[in-house]
């Protein structure tokens, strides 16, 4: 792999609540290479979004703080930058696309204004140049009649078009890294594929890397080169995307895949959809062993007391499980 754009080492972000410390992200490490698309999957509350917010330092300090680890980007540790330097990174070198296109745009400003704003903040261009750039970006995200649409307000656009505008804003300053937090979750299924295709296309064109945060394995399969599976704030498995789907090593990954509804005939049609028994552990409780052990069909006594290390299983496929052999055999 080429020189990594972003490398996260031992990231730990905790929420300090009245009832104790919630370890939302607990020692997460990963790297993203230039032009690579890395997926982070996991169920709600596993720390995917908190990871993204921690990288950009967008968590309100009263809520949660990153208490450990490093986030290296462009030769600097983002966690040590001052606020002004951080603003120079946000939206400029690292941009973010949010889940809710309906509410992530300011309803009282035209979309042109909002695209031009990022350009004005970071690139020191004139208003006219920024507006020209806004129209250009709208064309780039394939909004027809862009020259007229820049004057539209968000309520005049459909959900899919608004997400295109969000992407236009994110890419307007040529970021090296685009963090997409559930970019298609709020959209119709038919629009989802269009938006994903658009993001990949523009990524190729601009040479940006993407951190794709999603709970949808379909999205991962379609867009990512490598995938991280997160559970309870920790990485449980990481693999190239095809390898992960061919040979899931962690019982949790298996569970996720088994719970995707499939079309089929005969016996497959009548099969009940698999679910993972139990619930996500409370992140306030200390977890000496494997976080997934209480819900795991393969778990032994050892799983409850000793945290499994992330073992390399060849070809960049790592998994944190004591029983990968039994999982593979099953």
């Amino acid at each position: 792999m080429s020189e990594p754009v972003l490398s996260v080492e031992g990231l730990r972000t905790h929420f300090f609540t009245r009832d104790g410390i919630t370890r939302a992200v607990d020692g997460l490490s990963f790297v993203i290479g230039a032009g690579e698309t890395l997926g982070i999957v996991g169920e709600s509350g596993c720390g995917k979004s908190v990871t993204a917010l921690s990288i950009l330092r967008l968590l309100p300090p009263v809520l949660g703080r990153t208490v450990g680890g490093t986030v290296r980007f462009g030769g600097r540790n983002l966690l040590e930058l001052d606020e002004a330097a951080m603003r120079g990174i946000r939206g400029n070198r690292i941009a973010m696309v949010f889940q809710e296109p309906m509410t992530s745009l300011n309803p009282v400003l035209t979309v042109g204004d909002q695209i031009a704003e990022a350009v004005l903040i970071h690139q020191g261009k004139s208003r006219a140049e920024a507006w020209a750039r806004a129209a250009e970006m709208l064309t780039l995200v394939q909004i027809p009649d862009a020259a007229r649409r820049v004057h539209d307000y968000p309520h005049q656009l459909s959900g899919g078009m608004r997400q295109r505008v969000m992407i236009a804003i994110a890419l307007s300053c040529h970021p090296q890294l685009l963090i997409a937090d559930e970019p298609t979750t709020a959209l119709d299924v038919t629009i989802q594929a269009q938006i994903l295709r658009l993001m990949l296309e523009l990524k190729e064109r601009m040479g940006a890397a993407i951190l794709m945060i999603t709970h949808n394995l379909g999205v991962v399969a379609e867009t990512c080169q490598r995938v991280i599976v997160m559970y309870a704030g920790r990485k449980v498995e990481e693999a190239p995307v095809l390898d992960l789907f061919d040979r899931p090593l962690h019982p949790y990954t298996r569970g996720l895949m088994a719970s995707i509804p499939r079309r089929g005939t005969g016996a497959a049609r009548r099969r009940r959809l698999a679910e993972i028994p139990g619930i996500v552990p409370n992140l306030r409780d200390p977890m000496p062993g494997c976080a997934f052990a209480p819900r795991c069909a393969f778990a032994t006594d050892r799983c409850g007391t000793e945290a499994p290390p992330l073992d390399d299983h060849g070809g960049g496929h790592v998994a944190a499980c004591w029983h990968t052999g039994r999982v593979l055999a099953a």
Partner: protein
Amino acid sequence: MKRLATFCRRNPTIIIGAVLLVLVAAVALAAPSIAGDPVALKPIDRLQGPSAAHWLGTDFLGRDVYARVVYGARVSLIVGLSVAAMSIVIGLGIGLAAGYWRGVDAVVMRFMDGLMAIPAILLAIAMVSLNRASVWIVIVAITIPEVPRVVRLVRSVVLTVRTLPYIEAAVSDGSPAWKIVLRHILPSTIAPLIVQGTYITASAILIEAALSFLGAGVPPEIPTWGNMIAQSRLFIARAPWTIFAPGTALAMVILSVNLLGDGLRDLLDVRLARRMV
């Protein structure tokens, strides 16, 4: 033209309020050319009923009531509009800061709560007795207790808007704090402020009249509706027009401002408007 007609039909209160208000403003501006001297005394003609020479009769010093009502509109409008403008400008600044920065909030809002407890009339009486009476003193005295109301309104809008995803999106674009406040939050406060501004105008006009009535407001040589009513109340049985003329003018202006405010609220507050349809 057709759009204007549709607008008028849908928003009758705005049109009625605005037309009345424009009329009063025009009368106030044109006062010297449409009315005689409001302070000229003619004791021999005092307490005359309406006539060709004095359309609305004369008061107890023989002054022309019509001229005094026309000139009185100037004070009312100046006070009403200045108080609204000043309290909105000051309140907007404080409210934005208090809503966005929690540290400012804790300190400033306690101070505002204290200000809110001061009645405008009492403050005005105190200020007028400390200084020479003038229109400016009256304006400042009415503005001070209005500011906290604007601050509360603006702050509540800021608190609502600042948690919305588009603010988080703006932060993630690298926008500095002042830009987020001025560009992303400020516009959302405009609509409620316009409505609040009309109500402040109406209440300021009323308070000014009350102050003049009590003799604590504008200097007595300037004709205002308030001091006209005060001076005429002794003669209400003999010359009711001296009290009805300024009273009616006052009621009409307050009504028109409130009609305008109600109409604007229905127009600008989408949630309310839907309920009315």
